[in-house]
């Protein structure tokens, strides 16, 4: 069974803080993704990575950066959190059969 874990289920941060969201997978998948989910907007891709140290911007990369130093770990960084980044953040991996496996999500609130 693929396991995708995220470092926090719930997080509350203040405006301007630097925020790190970590994602770890145990299935040796090459591709990893960060999405945010907002009501009425579905899942929107922030960044993805297809290999260690490789990253590509998704649809909404502004205000975010990512890091992939090891194959199993993909981190999302909010350089200076803002209230409009309050959302649920989902990490995912991709199998060879194009199935994405998601972590449980991190509900981030920025006050």
């Amino acid at each position, binding site marked *: 069974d693929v396991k995708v874990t995220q470092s926090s289920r719930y997080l509350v941060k203040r405006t301007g803080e630097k925020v790190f969201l970590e994602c770890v997978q145990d299935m040796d998948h090459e591709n990893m993704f960060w999405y945010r989910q907002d009501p009425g907007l579905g899942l*929107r891709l922030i960044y993805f990575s297809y290999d260690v140290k490789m990253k590509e911007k998704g649809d909404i990369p502004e205000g975010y950066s990512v890091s992939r130093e090891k194959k199993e770990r993909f981190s999302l960084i909010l350089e200076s959190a803002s209230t409009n980044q309050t959302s649920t953040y*989902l990490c995912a991996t*991709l199998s060879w059969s*194009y199935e994405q496996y998601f972590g449980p999500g991190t509900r981030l609130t920025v006050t």
Partner: protein
Amino acid sequence: DQQVKQNSPSLSVQEGRISILNCDYTNSMFDYFLWYKKYPAEGPTFLISISSIKDKNEDGRFTVFLNKSAKHLSLHIVPSQPGDSAVYFCAAPFLTGNQFYFGTGTSLTVIP
């Protein structure tokens, strides 16, 4: 621009009846589609998929139909059960599969 669209944000169905969730797409280059199910406070989980070489794929109570000419797919759940109450997303991978497009989701409520 939304390339995968789910125009119904919510759907309510009686237990035992059929649930039909719809999805439209705009890009004729999409050749593979997936449905995901999401419970509150959990990540989406893969439900069923269909390749563009087929027009139907069935897995137990779940069937996905694809109409390529109309750029439309639908997920049928028969019979619907209260445990099916969740948000359903349709999705399509694009290019090398590194980019996925998701619909906005349909929240299904199955009434006991």
